[in-house]
């Protein structure tokens, strides 16, 4: 039984777009890391094999002979909607969409179809999911044991690069991770900060949560309302404090206009909910030690 968006070694992963350069590179890393990759999808190479795994013409074809728990999409933006609808229609329970710059109206159609089928989606524009010691799906250095170590802290991040740095800092301070949930930098995403928080709250392997947010949108505020009900300690860092208003900071979602989505508003919402908000990534491990001690005291 899959606990998506927490990835497990028992999750059977199908890679849409596995035969391309990035698809090949990252699929090899995922397998090396222990992920159960069962095959790939490429309509032009159906029936062949790649990396010793079968290539199917579609997700619909793959599920005829294979159980698929998760698909991972290495698919360009213009083809992403059809690829996602293929996976949703085939009944795959979890989809990870790495693609950035998918037209937002295509994303609306993907989410509407997923809601009808009960499909869970992570992304678009996510770097993926990592469970140290068990495997990963995405474009994260899940195979690098200096960065990811098994442990009991859950990490949620919109950003892959910053999320990686945070996990590195945690590992160096002796905090391994139960699971890393990369949710993606787009304004509209399938798994929100709150959704990931709920999953980690219910995860028996997680004792505490580190939340890596960004300016823009209302996701941290929504998550704060849930955080207020949680017993597990939460430490947060919000990127974009120094960003000038009205400028998109790389991620389409990271923009502030007036007070909406501002650093100050997010920080206040989280602190009011009992979340410890730190000023720099280096402070996270110390804050986490204190928060855990306080809880056990």
């Amino acid at each position, binding site marked *: 039984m899959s606990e998506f968006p927490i990835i497990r070694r028992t999750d059977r992963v199908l890679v849409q777009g596995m035969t391309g350069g990035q698809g090949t590179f990252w699929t090899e890393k995922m397998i090396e890391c222990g992920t159960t990759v069962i095959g790939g999808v490429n309509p032009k190479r159906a029936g062949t094999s790649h990396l010793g795994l079968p290539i199917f013409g579609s997700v619909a074809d793959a599920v005829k002979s294979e159980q698929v728990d998760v698909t991972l999409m290495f698919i360009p*933006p*213009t083809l992403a909607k059809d690829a996602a609808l293929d996976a949703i229609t085939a009944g795959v329970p979890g989809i990870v969409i790495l693609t950035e*710059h*998918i*037209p*937002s*109206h295509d994303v*609306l159609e993907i*989410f*509407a179809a997923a*809601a009808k089928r009960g499909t869970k989606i992570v992304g678009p524009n996510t*770097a993926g999911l990592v469970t140290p010691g068990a495997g990963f799906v995405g*474009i*994260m*250095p899940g195979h*690098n044991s*200096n*960065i990811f170590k098994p442990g009991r802290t859950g990490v949620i*991040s*919109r*950003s*892959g*690069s*910053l*999320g*990686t*740095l945070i996990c*590195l*800092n945690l590992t160096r301070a002796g905090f391994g991770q139960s699971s890393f949930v990369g949710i993606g*930098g787009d*304004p*509209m995403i*399938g798994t*929100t900060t709150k959704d990931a928080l709920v999953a980690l709250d219910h995860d028996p392997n997680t004792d505490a949560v580190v939340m*890596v947010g*960004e*300016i823009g*949108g*209302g*996701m941290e505020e929504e998550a704060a309302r849930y955080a207020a009900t949680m017993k597990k300690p939460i430490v947060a*860092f919000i*990127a*974009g*404090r*120094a*960003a*000038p208003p009205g*400028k*998109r*900071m*790389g*991620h*389409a*979602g*990271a923009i502030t206009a007036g007070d*909406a989505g501002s650093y100050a508003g997010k920080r206040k919402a989280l602190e009011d909910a009992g979340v410890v908000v730190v*000023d*720099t*990534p*280096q402070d996270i491990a110390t804050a986490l030690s204190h928060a855990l001690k306080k809880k056990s005291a």
Partner: protein
Amino acid sequence: MILNEGDAKKLVLAPVGINLLHGAICATPGEAAAAVQQFGRCVIKAQVPAGKRGKAGGIKLVSSAAEAEKVAADILAMRIGDYAVQGLLVEQCAAIAEEYYAAVLHAPVERATLILFSAEGGMDIEELAATKPEAIRRFIVRTPDAFSIDDAKSMLAGLDVDIAGISDVLVKLYQRYRQTDAELVEINPLALLEDGRLVALDCKFILDDAATYRQTELAAAAASEEPTMLEAKGAAQGLKFIELLGNVGILANGAGLTMTTMDVVKYLGGSPANFMEIGGDAYTKGEAALALVLANPNVKSLVVNFCGAFARTDVMAKGVADAWKVLKPDVPVFFSVHGTGEDEAVALIEKEFGVTPFDFMEDAVKAAIAVTK
């Protein structure tokens, strides 16, 4: 991308028959005068992708061609917000009975579309939402293309307005939102004229940047954004670069890490000179990126902060080293490098720059700030 009002009315609203006043998009005072000659008493409106045009003096009533010529020349010479005025919209005056608000936009938290209507239009919707939220009717469309006249009527039920007429406008507005890959289409005000017609007096339209490849006509009509020269150069090379006022140059990968590097520079008492990220598909463009960061004469020191997930730090570090040999900058550089390709990247930096990267980015930032003081 944003369309100026006149273009949004012509390209987004007119094709589905949403009523507009008689008017003309004008580029010169002469054209504005000719429009007033034709339509009589008119409003001249600055075309610029900024709000508060009226308060800034960019919207004026004129009664004669001579007056129009003078007012048009004044408005064309203005800057409003961050922008030079890009043109004029000259529209015939009409007798207004009531002003409403209508909009269709993305609702990220609901992962759906939000339709808004208020019988109290004319003002800023954020202000109305804050002071009188009950005055705004909302409807969430969860299934794309499933917003019907009956949905619109149910949304407006009980309001003392022309429900049939406004429902028709809302459904058409939603159709255009879908057809044009809009993030937002807003009519504020939607006016009820004394003759009973519903007319869009203003229109705001935001096109999804990711959909410009299939909305070429709208993309070509988009308002100019006025990036700085260096920002424009960055955009032309597929690099997200924003110039800031400080003196600590920043080169990092990924939006989240780059923002964080800026934040830490500011938090530790320094002042960032730029936002420049070379993550994602841009991670091979280290050389071009560095050239842009160093082209800013205010840069006194440089922080290079890489944490490779998808992006390979060895490739990025080689880009920086190669660019350094070409540019030969007289600027001290402070590295912090972790993640994918780290061992090769650190070895390369030690060889080419004779320094070992800082273990923590905070220490690299501290050192970079220290030399600017």
